[in-house]
């Protein structure tokens, strides 16, 4: 009996958290090929402030770092963000900013993107659309891709 109560209590305690799937889209395949790592961050936003947090968050991340997200993936191989995306199992309810960063292996921030979405039961997947940063062109200058496509990159390990 006590075990049942513990199970119920933990479920009730977890009430309000919901899984969220995130799809990351790249402008073109070449952008994906140049990226090596990605990190997905989730920030709370206040609907009373108008849900226009993304530009400030992108600016903050590019200038002073990632700050205090409520959820974050590790910096993962970029292939982990391909096809089906990634998901968080326990996003608190309400609107959040989902911010994706894509780096090369020299730690250059190549692409970023941000989307505001609400976590709720049955919500559609969140789509984060990436765009090259101002450092992109300089970072890829002189680099030669050895991968012809994303499949090769993620299965053959070419770069």
């Amino acid at each position: 009996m006590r075990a049942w109560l513990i199970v119920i209590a933990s479920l009730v305690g977890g009430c309000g958290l919901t899984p969220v799937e995130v799809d990351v889209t790249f402008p073109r395949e070449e952008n994906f090929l140049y990226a090596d790592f990605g990190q997905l961050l989730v920030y709370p936003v206040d609907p009373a402030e108008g849900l226009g947090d993304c530009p400030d968050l992108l600016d903050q991340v590019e200038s002073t770092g990632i700050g205090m997200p409520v959820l974050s993936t590790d910096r993962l191989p970029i292939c982990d963000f391909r096809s089906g995306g990634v998901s968080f199992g326990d996003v608190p309810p309400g609107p959040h900013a989902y911010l994706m960063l894509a780096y090369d292996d020299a730690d250059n921030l190549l692409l970023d993107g941000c989307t505001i979405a609400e976590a709720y039961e049955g919500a559609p997947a969140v789509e984060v659309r990436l765009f090259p940063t101002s450092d992109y062109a300089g970072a890829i200058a002189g680099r030669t891709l050895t991968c012809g496509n994303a499949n090769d990159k993620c299965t053959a390990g070419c770069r």
Partner: protein
Amino acid sequence: MTYRRILAIALAALCAACGPERTLDPDAFEPIKIGLVISRSGALGGDGPGWEDASRLAALEVNAAGGLLGGHPVELIVVDDETNTGDADFHTALANELIGDGVVGVVGAAASSISLGVAAVLTPARIPQISCCSTSDRVTAFNEALAPEGRFLFRTIAPDSLQSLVVALTAEALACTNVAILHLNDDYGQPFGEAIEAALRADGVTVAIRVPYMEGQPSYATEVGMIMAAAPDCVALVAFPGSGGTILRDWNGAGGSTDTTWIGTDGIRAPAFIEATGDPALVRNFYGTSPITDATTPEYNSYSERFRASLSGESPIPFSSNQYDATALLMLAIERAGTTDGAAVRDALREVSTRQSEPDFERPGELADALKELGRGRDIDYQGASGNVDFDELGNVISPFEIWRYDAPGSTAMCTGARTMLTGGLGSFCRFRIISPEEIRP
């Protein structure tokens, strides 16, 4: 039923009811729809996809920054105008299709006749519209006929009233003494041809003949014959790429003089024109005028770099920068207005494009910064890839012009200005001379 089973059912019910509910309005993240009137086929079909890409780039940039008005992604709704310049019913149908799709603003068209045909529906519906490429003076006349509060048509390209003066300057620079004018008979070509005639006469140049023609004909042998009979030393040609190519083929086929100097305009400064001739070698002594759409400014260079990085890897085509600016300005105006209401967005278009008090200057590739500044209630003055794009009260902008020269493959002609190499071994366009607005109208 056992106690344990009742407990299991209660637990299942609890879990089912456990998920958080939606708290925001279901429309909170609905896309904001922007219409694109694009020539995916017809005479401008070779360029349309490149212009569509320019709009896609601006939308990509804004969507990566979280969209507009607090998280609304931008969705582009594209209709193909088929470069069908003569069918007013078709233009009406295009506009109504976009309105039915729920667009809050429109970018396009390229051809002036189509822009005006679409505007005849969009303007009364109070939907802002910005053309990248419609240079006709009839666009100005369309707005002049309306009270300021009724104007919703803009363009990010300088009008032909200025370019016709540049054609006359070009004729003078090329020592033309007897000029024939061959021009489209539509909203682009007719007033342009007439304005060129007036500008030439004002400069004391003889106009041998002015011949209008209709787009989309398989042959222009009759019109070419009329021009040849007038024996001009120069021909001013106001055309689209397809018909321009046919005219040159007909000229060469009819034994037209190889010494004749041609002065084209913005409508044919495109690879599609050279392709349409079927043989670059037929394009001899060919000069032209055009608003400069790929200035070597930091703004254009940034745009070009981002275009290559984010889209096909190719460089943007002519007027791509104007299309990008049109799309960017429309989105910035929506953010500035804080609403998609047409009149508010129209008013905001002037605010984000021109210098306000203590503005922050925002540029291509900086749309996220621009949205941030607007979100803080600050003024911005968008400096476009195609120029400063300051809209006046008639929705026009002013830009510098170029005199260009076509150099066929293998040409050894020197080019002291910027050279645009055409892919596929089609030769190049050389920026022969830059004409500032002050030179046109001192």
